[in-house]
């Protein structure tokens, strides 16, 4: 239950590093602010994006079958996966039947969610993540800590050390140019020898059966264009109705994610190249459950820009790994309890409910309202400590009884003014660990008011 709090405390123990992490992400948020303020119709775009997504979800089955039909007509094999396991099996079968031994993968949070890499490795298929940040965390055997900036928790020195251990670079080397060159050569070898490429999809266009993949490194394109097999795995919520809707989402995505007018590569894949196989694996994995939860349906609007993480004062000071979920940060904290309420009961509480996530969201997901609503569900059926439940019950009784409230208030203030410091600042007092308690006044406001009235 308290996992995030404990992880965060550990993260913050290295305060200079916490400050560095906070500043790195705040820098991205500031870049985003500059870029979105150049678009006078920004708020209209957000509204439009939100409405298009609402429309998609209200008629998702129709759009999905339309998409499937069009993709099939384009010569693409369409597969449906109910859950992570089915997804992994489908991918494995495609690769096995073509005798693939090595696959390159561009960044895909869905395959992280499905834990595809270990599944394929178990079956002797090597998977190389080709997004630089993703490759770095893969070499370190870590999950990404951010959905857009997977290695944002690492300093260049950390990357240098990882490359030294795994790729044989000079010890202590941390020059970004040098490291990037090494990575480029290392990845190039893999691009040339892989016989399949897997990508995610940022958008799947129902009216023409195409997908759009947005990257800044062009790694998805290189992988797909060199390999005889292209597999694209994505969730059912990636559908957008029309080609022209891209003119809304591509503008929203790049600006809100990293403060770029558009991602460096926004590639649309429509049909297989001559001699190439192309597969779509469309995954549910509990998304329809979320679709059925009225209060949380809007979480499926998410276009994975990651801005809610960059803006979140808690995420910036606790790091992506503290959320112990595939998708961290505010959006992860409203998606994860839908996957496993008990396991992720702590996440809706890993927020001060400041609401910055909601205001920064490019498709207007009411993230902090959903965090509040998940808290109520955790309180009712999740993994909330009994002590907290009892405390809240008593607090409710106390605050609904004016006499009891006044007596306890007075006694409390008296206790605060006479108790010795070691009693007040005992280990149970989480407030007082790093904060002083307020100085209790002699009179409450009510007491003052009554003396005035006499």
């Amino acid at each position: 239950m308290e996992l995030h709090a404990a992880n965060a405390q550990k993260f913050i123990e290295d305060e200079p590093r916490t400050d560095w992490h906070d500043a790195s992400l705040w820098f991205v948020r500031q870049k985003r602010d500059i870029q979105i303020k150049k678009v006078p119709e920004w708020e209209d775009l957000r509204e439009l994006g939100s409405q298009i997504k609402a429309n998609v979800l209200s008629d998702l089955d129709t759009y999905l079958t339309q998409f499937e039909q069009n993709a099939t007509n384009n010569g693409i094999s369409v597969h449906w996966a109910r859950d992570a396991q089915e997804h992994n099996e489908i991918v494995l079968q495609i690769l096995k039947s073509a005798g693939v031994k090595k696959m390159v993968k561009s960044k895909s949070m869905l395959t992280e969610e499905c834990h595809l890499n270990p599944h394929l490795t178990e079956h002797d298929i090597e998977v190389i993540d080709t997004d630089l940040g993703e490759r770095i965390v893969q070499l370190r055997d870590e999950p990404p800590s951010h959905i857009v900036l997977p290695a944002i928790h690492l300093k260049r020195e950390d990357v240098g050390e990882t490359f030294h251990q795994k790729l044989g670079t000079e010890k202590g080397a941390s020059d970004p140019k040098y490291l990037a060159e090494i990575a480029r050569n290392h990845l190039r070898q893999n691009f040339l020898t892989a016989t399949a490429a897997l990508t995610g999809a940022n958008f799947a266009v129902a009216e023409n059966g195409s997908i759009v993949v947005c990257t800044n490194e062009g790694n998805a394109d290189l992988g797909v264009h060199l390999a005889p097999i292209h597999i694209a795995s994505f969730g059912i919520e990636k559908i957008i109705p029309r080609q022209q809707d891209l003119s809304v989402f591509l503008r929203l995505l790049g600006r809100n994610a990293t403060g770029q007018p558009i991602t460096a590569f926004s590639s649309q894949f429509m049909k297989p190249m001559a001699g190439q196989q192309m597969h779509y694996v469309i995954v549910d994995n509990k998304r329809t459950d979320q679709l059925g939860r009225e209060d949380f349906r809007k979480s499926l609007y998410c276009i994975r820009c990651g801005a809610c993480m960059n803006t979140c004062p808690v995420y910036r000071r606790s790091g992506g790994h503290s959320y112990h979920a595939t998708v961290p940060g505010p959006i992860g904290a409203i998606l994860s309890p839908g996957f496993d309420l008990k396991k992720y009961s702590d996440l809706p509480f890993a927020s001060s409910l400041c609401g910055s996530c909601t205001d920064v969201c490019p498709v207007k997901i009411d993230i902090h309202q959903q965090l509040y609503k998940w808290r109520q569900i955790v309180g009712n059926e999740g993994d909330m400590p009994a002590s907290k439940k009892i405390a809240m019950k008593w607090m409710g009784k106390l605050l609904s009884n004016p006499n009891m409230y006044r007596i306890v208030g007075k006694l409390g203030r008296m206790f605060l003014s006479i108790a010795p410091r070691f009693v007040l600042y005992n280990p149970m007092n989480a407030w007082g660990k790093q904060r002083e308690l307020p100085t209790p006044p002699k009179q409450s406001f009510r007491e003052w008011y009554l003396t005035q009235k006499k």
Partner: protein
Amino acid sequence: MKVALFIPCYIDQFYPEVGIATYELLQKSGCDVHYPINQTCCGQPMANSGCETESIETAKLFIDNFKGYDYIVGPAASCVYFVKKHYYILEQNADVQAVTHNVYDLSEFMTDVLKVNEINARFPYKVGLHTSCHGQRGMRLAQSSEINAPDFNKQKQLLSMVKDIELVNLDRTDECCGFGGTFCVFEEAVSVKMGKDRIADHAKNDVQVITGGDISCLMHLQGIIQRQKSTIKVMHMAQILNATS
């Protein structure tokens, strides 16, 4: 104009001077101010902790205390926000509808209802304004920095009318202080780190007094400031608007 004064529990118990300043301010503005003496709390602490049903009795008591007034005004945007936006937990009878409609945070009551455009107060200090998140993003008392729309801030608007005040610009205009209700104890480490960072922003910009419309945030910041033995003072904006010296 019959105005009921809403003094949230922690102001009643720990910051009576904020209640007094609010009371005096409203009287000076010509309101007929009443203090319903059986009030306690709005019910937010339990609800934010995931126990909304435990808030119902407290919310009912709030309605009993505050029904029948033209306006209900409290110097705490967060508590007012809870009454306004979360009393769907109650059956929506006429009293509940009237109370949730007529409840105001002090600053928006002064700017939007009383339409105050002059304040007879003097405060010759460098002041940093901490706009609480519930005030800003819940009650929309100020524009959020995430939004691409004209800037406004009702609390700043009022403070600017105070004589000799120097309102200081902060590096991060609307970052959360980390109080967050029970978040401040259940996520103690992050909460305190957020508070420390907020204070550092004020300190870096030579702020002498941190003010705001929510003493809950300020209580948290004050707790850290005192532990740090810093000289920065913390005051509710009602105290500044009421500073006659």
